[in-house]
């Protein structure tokens, strides 16, 4: 049985099991129909031209893991930002782990989507926001159909959350192959501030395919900083679809650090609905072997006087492959816009490749839009300069790669996270530099 057939036939049993009065019952039924009709995306679709899921779909994934596997804090501590206090939402093989988590309902909600979907007091929020910004494509629809667990974060008006929130999805390898479909809903009220870190981490060498969907709603003047750390095992793949809806004068920034995984596809979508919104999409990709990372971004400008900034850096070694497909869509009313998009890549080895496709679609006449991409090797003159100062080839390369990626790190606002990413980059590049990064 194909994975698609398996999913479609499992759906009825899944939906039967759920509480009858779930407010999203109809959404689920509609979503599975969309998935059944469209199936998994294929290379025939323009947006999937350079990323094929075919090989991944051959695995016999377990859709509903049988047992909850417990994990010890000491074994996974390193995946947390352990040097500062954070709220934590931890899921193990798709199941909430209360022991590793640190939730709250005290002046803000950092809790589970499962309880938000089932408890009457959240009904209004769920009805107002759930699945309201997500696109009805096949993979997002598949996630919606099976949406059951994930993070539910609601920051009320004027609340500045004092510590970051970590969302971590572990997979233990309890099953030979597992399909995980976390679903996150994040609502940030007027003038509220929040920092969120999301991570997917496989703890074994078994096959993992994660089809994650996150919806973020930023109300007026809200500030959202979202960090995605993608440094997973070589047997773990991720399709991450994030939808961000921004109201007037809100600031949303998403940083995506893609350092590991078998195949990663990021669908990052911003919708600017109010005036003077500011969106930032930053990414650093450093991969090797046969790893594949695909950034598919959309910034949809609807209202005037807004800004968007995209800066994606990629370093590709061995026969790794990358895709950058960035679209800026400017509607007729989105005048006085400042949209900027940049994608720079370094191919370290001859077999590495990147397909970069920046796209601008502009229907307004008074806007400032720029985009550009570069693909190159490390600058030989710069290498000679460093070497002539006594710096060995390996360190010189590392220094140049570090310098190349550095400006993206500048905008990481959590010092402990920045230090951590710095370390990950140094490890990834394979040297310890002669100074504190």
């Amino acid at each position, binding site marked *: 049985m194909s994975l698609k057939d398996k999913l479609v036939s499992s759906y009825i049993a899944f939906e039967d099991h759920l509480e009858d009065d779930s407010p999203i019952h109809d959404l689920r039924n509609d979503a599975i129909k969309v998935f059944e009709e469209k199936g998994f995306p294929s290379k025939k679709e323009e947006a999937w031209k350079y990323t094929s899921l075919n090989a991944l779909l051959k695995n016999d994934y377990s859709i509903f893991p049988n047992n909850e596997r417990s994990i010890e804090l000491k074994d996974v501590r390193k995946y947390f930002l352990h040097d500062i206090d954070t709220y934590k939402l931890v899921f193990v093989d798709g199941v909430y782990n209360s022991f590793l988590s640190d939730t709250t309902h005290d002046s803000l909600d950092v809790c589970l989507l499962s309880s938000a979907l089932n408890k009457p007091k959240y009904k209004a929020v769920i009805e107002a926001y759930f699945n309201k910004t997500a696109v009805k494509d096949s993979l997002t629809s598949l996630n919606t159909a099976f949406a059951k667990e994930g993070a539910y974060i609601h920051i009320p008006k004027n609340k500045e959350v004092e510590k970051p929130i970590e969302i971590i999805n572990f997979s233990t390898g309890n099953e030979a192959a597992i399909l995980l479909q976390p679903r996150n809903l994040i609502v940030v009220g007027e003038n509220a501030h929040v920092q969120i870190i999301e991570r997917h981490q496989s703890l074994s060498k078994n096959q993992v395919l994660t089809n994650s969907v996150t919806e973020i709603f930023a109300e007026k003047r809200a500030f959202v900083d979202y960090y995605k750390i993608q440094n997973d095992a070589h047997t773990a793949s991720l399709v991450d679809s994030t939808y961000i809806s921004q109201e007037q004068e809100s600031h949303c920034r998403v940083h995506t650090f893609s350092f590991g995984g078998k195949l990663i596809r990021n669908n990052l979508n911003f919708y600017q609905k109010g005036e003077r919104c500011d969106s930032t999409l930053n990414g650093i990709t450093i991969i090797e072997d046969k790893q594949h990372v695909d950034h598919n971004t959309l910034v949809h400008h609807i209202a005037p006087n807004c800004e968007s900034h995209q800066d994606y850096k990629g370093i590709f070694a061995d026969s790794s492959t990358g895709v950058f497909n960035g679209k800026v869509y400017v509607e007729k009313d989105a005048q006085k816009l400042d949209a900027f998009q940049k994608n720079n890549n370094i191919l370290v080895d001859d077999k590495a490749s990147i397909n970069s496709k920046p796209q601008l679609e502009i229907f307004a006449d008074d806007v400032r839009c720029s985009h550009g991409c570069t693909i190159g090797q490390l*600058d*030989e*003159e*710069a290498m*000679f*300069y*460093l*070497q*002539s*100062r*006594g*710096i*060995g*080839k390996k*360190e*010189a390369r590392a*220094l*140049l790669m*570090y*310098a190349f*990626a*550095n*400006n993206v*790190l500048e905008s990481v606002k959590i010092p402990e996270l920045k230090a951590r990413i710095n370390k990950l980059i140094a490890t990834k590049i394979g040297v310890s*530099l*002669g*100074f504190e990064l």
Partner: protein
Amino acid sequence: MLHIKNLHAAVEEKEILKGIDLDVNPGEVHAIMGPNGSGKSTLASVIAGKEEFELLKGNITFEGEDISELDPEERAHKGLFLSFQYPVEIPGVSVTNFVKTAINENRKAKGEADMPAGEMLKMIKEKADMLEIDRKFLSRSLNEGFSGGEKKRNEIFQMAMLEPKLAILDETDSGLDIDALKVVANGVNKLKSKDNAVIVITHYQRLLDYIVPDFVHVLMNGKIVKSGTKELAYELEAKGYDWIKEELVK
């Protein structure tokens, strides 16, 4: 110290150096002058070990060892330094961190431990003061957005920190106003000793008023066609290069 014998070098199969002989001893200052395209910068790059140049013939020995086949960093470890005509910008790496990395990489190559942080700071402060470099300058990204003068001053600062046995200054005077030129020249003079040597590559005699050479060589069409003392520099300044060409024809 440095002995270059019958050096022929090419880039992309085009021969640029066509038989250079040069001997530099400790304590000496040599100036290499010549018109544009004569091969001055190529000579500097070949001595420093730039890979894009192919050595066709001849060899380069430094302190008795043939260094022709060594990587640039290995030559640096032996005490060679090249001040670049166009220093490269390295965003995200501060001048201080760059210099620290360079010094410790050199020490590592010699099997020495990293320089203690206190000692490093003291040295940085000392050398920065000597070259009238502002403290704020040291925390800026290496060469990024630097003016021409700042870049050259930063090159000499690195030279001061690395304390090379032989420094090659490639067009260090270009882009410098007279005040900056004096500061840079003054720095170079303070670093001079009987144990080290300097090769100054320049277009103009101007720099040689401040860094006084023991020998002046004229490089034309890939060869040293004339050598002399500092008076030769004045003669070149006054008469240009054509008279040498004519002399050669005779």
